[in-house]
């Protein structure tokens, strides 16, 4: 089964020949550890992804625009997009949601106050981000991208940052519009947020997302429980604690961890295996390779 087909089937919660693997982020510094070149290029990144046996990659927008204001969609560049879509990998484009943009542009306190006060400025801000993202989705669909990952950190390790009712009133409707827009181009959409999302899982599923990425175990997210409650609606992606790949671990320990995630997360249906954080330079490459290999073997 091709990488792309495998991920597509996992998203549709259909049986797959092996559990697909994917990562939200892979830093160039980690890629660099495999090569002697100082600046990794597309070829190096692809070789790294293939060496790890990943099925899906995430493309992040470059900051080719001023960070002080909301950019025009044409100024948002996804590096090497044309090269990535020519591979047989499933390609996700990562776009930020209104909370993410507000955090960057207004600062955390202003974001929280404007959200809490339901200011008209903030409602306009949400609408502007919605328009930006719809334009991006349309452009990305035309460029051959396979899926969208809408990233909006609405939670931290103790729960959501604002009242669920407030998120339900102001944020989720906009996210739902964006997800629906992507569906019009036949693009599946995942939602990403760090933290404990337990109180809004129903809203995430109701917003029409095809999957949930991150499922941060350290924040108390229980992938088995999420699977039990929303596995019929959402494909789950992530849950592996990055510390497992940073700290020294025996193969037996890693196998146990992988087995737990795979068993709880759905085995060969509706699961994409990966970390909840992405891959960073301080991770042990041998451990990284080992966990993907174990996930692929599935017979653990």
């Amino acid at each position, binding site marked *: 089964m091709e990488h792309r087909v495998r991920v597509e089937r996992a998203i549709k919660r259909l049986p797959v020949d092996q559990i697909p693997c994917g990562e939200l982020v892979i830093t160039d510094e980690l890629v660099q550890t495999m090569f002697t070149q100082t600046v990794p290029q597309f070829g190096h990144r692809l070789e790294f992804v293939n060496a790890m046996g990943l099925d899906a990659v995430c493309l992040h927008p470059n900051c080719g625009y001023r960070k002080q204001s909301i950019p025009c969609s044409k100024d948002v560049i996804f590096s090497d997009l044309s090269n990535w879509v020519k591979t047989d990998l499933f390609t996700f484009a990562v776009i930020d949601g209104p909370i993410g943009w507000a955090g960057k542009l207004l600062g*955390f*306190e202003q974001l*929280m*106050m404007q*959200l*809490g*006060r339901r200011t008209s400025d903030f409602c306009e801000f949400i609408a502007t981000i919605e328009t930006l993202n719809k334009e991006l989705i349309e452009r990305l669909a035309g460029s051959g991208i396979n899926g969208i990952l809408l990233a909006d*950190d609405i939670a*931290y*390790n*103790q*729960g*959501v*940052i*604002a*009242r669920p009712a*407030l998120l339900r009133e102001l944020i989720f409707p906009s996210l739902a519009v964006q997800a629906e827009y992507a569906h019009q181009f036949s693009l599946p959409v995942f939602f990403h947020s*760090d*933290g404990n999302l337990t109180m809004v899982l129903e809203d995430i599923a109701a917003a029409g997302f095809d999957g949930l990425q991150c499922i941060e175990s*350290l924040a108390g997210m229980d992938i088995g429980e999420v699977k039990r409650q929303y596995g019929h609606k959402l494909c789950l992606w992530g849950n592996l604690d*990055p*510390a497992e790949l*940073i*700290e020294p671990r025996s193969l037996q320990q890693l196998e146990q961890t992988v087995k737990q995630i795979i068993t709880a997360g759905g085995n060969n249906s509706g699961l994409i295996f990966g970390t909840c954080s992405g891959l960073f330079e*301080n991770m042990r490459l041998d451990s990284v390779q080992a966990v993907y290999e174990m996930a692929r073997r599935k017979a653990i």
Partner: protein
Amino acid sequence: MTVLKLLANAISELDEPLALELVKKGLKLGISPLNIVEECRNGLVSVGDRYSRGEYFLGDLILSSEIFSQIMDNLNPVIEPNKKKPFIGKIVFGTIEGDIHDIGKNLVGSLLRCYGFEVYDLGVDVSPDKFIMALTESGAPVLCLCTLLSPGFEAMKRTIQLVRLIERNMKIKILIGGLVSEKVREYTGADAWVDDARRGVDICLQWSQELAQK
């Protein structure tokens, strides 16, 4: 219900327009501004309690502090100049070297500012020498370090060791937060640890009181 009780209740309910209106009304009735401030604090305590019970969320804590701040702006012209702005103390804050997580830091930093601390937020991936420089320049007696990565404990320990070297006779209080525990506190040599934003603020408030009494 008296204006003051209604005010505490309005803050507790996060009813910003009503709270501001009640402050104006209270002033017109000749209620002492300091009594108004005291009642505001009761309202804030109630918000804090509701947060602790899981009834309120982080955004509510920040909003309540902002309401208080606006009330203080209204009261400032009638309060003695030296009581204009509550200033609790200075704090240097940052995510340690090798870690780029910032949400926990932002949460606690925001709350600390709301409670009257002057927070020197150094950002993420902060090297030990930058913490030292900020402590030296600001004269802050409290340092807050956070990490969500276990390899960060080494950088945390290095930073704390350096701080202990430069602090001389002024013992700098060090609070660690994020993915930490009592074991990590012992390992790094910090004074306290938290995994909850509100608790972090409580500890800093307690330390400030202790320092003020010295």
